[in-house]
């Protein structure tokens, strides 16, 4: 563990920020352009994982464990969200036989 943190700290912090910003942006673009509910959902997870990576990097660089504890919170709550989210997607699939979000157009002004 000690070895791992020194190795992580060996990479400059800027690189982590750039990498995470790129992963996060890929996630955002995925949410905005994709039409399949599951792929959108995967893109959201990608955003959350970018956050997790960045939190860990900051935590190691500032020698402060609270950032890594926060990562556990995010993982736990993301798992709860997955459970509820997949249930909702299954519910929609049962009624429409599709998980394409273009079917969600009955409520319009």
């Amino acid at each position, binding site marked *: 563990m000690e070895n791992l943190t020194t190795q992580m700290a060996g990479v400059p*912090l800027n690189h982590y*920020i750039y990498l995470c910003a790129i992963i*996060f942006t890929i*996630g*955002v673009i995925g*949410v905005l352009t994709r039409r399949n*509910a599951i792929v*959108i*959902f995967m893109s*959201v997870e990608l*955003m*959350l994982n*970018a*956050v997790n990576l*960045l*939190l860990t990097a*900051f935590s190691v660089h*500032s020698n*402060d464990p*609270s*950032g890594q*504890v*926060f990562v556990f*919170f*995010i993982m736990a*709550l993301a798992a*709860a*969200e997955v459970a*509820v*989210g997949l249930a*909702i*997607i299954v*519910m*929609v699939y049962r*009624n*429409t036989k599709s998980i394409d*979000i273009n079917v*969600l157009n*009955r*409520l*319009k*002004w």
Partner: protein
Amino acid sequence: MNIIITISITAFIVLYAGLFKANRALLPLTVVGLLTALGFTFCAWNGNAVHFGMMQTDNFALAFSGVCIVGTLLIFLLTQNYFAAKSSNIAEYYTLILFALAGMIMMVSYKNMAMLFVGLEIMSVSLYILAGIRKQDFASNEASLKYFLMGAFSTGFLLFGITLIYGATGSFDLDKIQAYLVDNSKSISPIFYPGVILMMIGLCFKVGAAPFHFWTPDVYEGSPSLITTFMSTVVKTAGFAAFLRLFASSFAPLHDFWVVPLTVIVCLTLFIGNVTALFQKNFKRMLAYSSISHAGYLLFSLIVLSKNSENNVLVYAAAYTFASIIAFAVLILVKQKTGSDSFESFNGLGKKNPLVALSLTVAMLSLAGIPLTAGFIGKYLMFLNVMGEYKTLLVAFAILNALVGFYYYFKVIVAVWFKDGAETELSTPGQYKVVLLVSVAITLILGIYPAIILNLI
């Protein structure tokens, strides 16, 4: 702390009561639990206790907790015959609403960003389920999926913002972040600024401020009316309290930086909310857009930060919450009778149902901001606060929008009193009467004698 524990334990007891088919005991148990929580809120007043550096029950948190608990209590009283007609597992509805309330109490009293995130997620996950709880109804499904995808997306922004702020300051604690800003006012880390903006985007999604509002009308329309009531009143209040706690205290030293995007958001929200509400044919959807415009007025208080900002938001949120509860209660009654929530179904309501029509009138007047109602006091305080720095154009714009709002609120009043309709007599259960009377009383008392709430925080 006691408040959250009481509410969570009540939620579990209600769940078990449902397991043993004690359906008649659900409402009394919930009401007792919530009244106990309200009692703890009063006991902790002026205590300003900090719990493990994570939560701070100062008067701000307690006042907003009080509004949320009372609002939820009134909404629970509206459940009479509502859920039972639709589903046999009513205990789950009660439990989920209670869990959402526990999340909200965390949101209004956090001292650490971790608690903001946890509270927000507890609330949101419960609401995703509640929005889609009518499994066979397509509109409910759609509302649930939209709410879920947008909610998860906005959580991503919020978290990235929190992370960048953590990277800049090395802490999640609100006081330490503020101390960092004050100490390093000349050399704030460049990653702090995008952090603030991302957090603002995430929270604007949650409270439904334009341009991040597009999910609101669909979700509010598709969800069951009672859940919409909950989402547009109590949940919104909690969201604003969370927003305010962060921006009015921790980020206050950076006010000059974030006030610019915030002003744009406020103007857009007011304009889009009011103008789109004009064109609605459906009462429920009109209320959804009106809730967007009220989000604009609530954010208005952050444009000029003064010692009154927090109290102004409390007054406005209380006024808006109780007026909206009346409006939705009447909507539920009308929809049960006529099966439709368009404006036409309100025609001629006043002839046979004076109490309901009168309450609806008071609610509409309060939402529009007519003097002698709580809504007027709320709007007056907001505008007065911003006028303190002579931002005349902005206040003029907001007042213009308030005038636009008069049109669609008065459309309802005209329909109720002056138009000829089917003249159906609504069956108003006793609990609905209680809710209507209590909400009307609060709205009028706050409007006539506002001193009781003005210096609360």
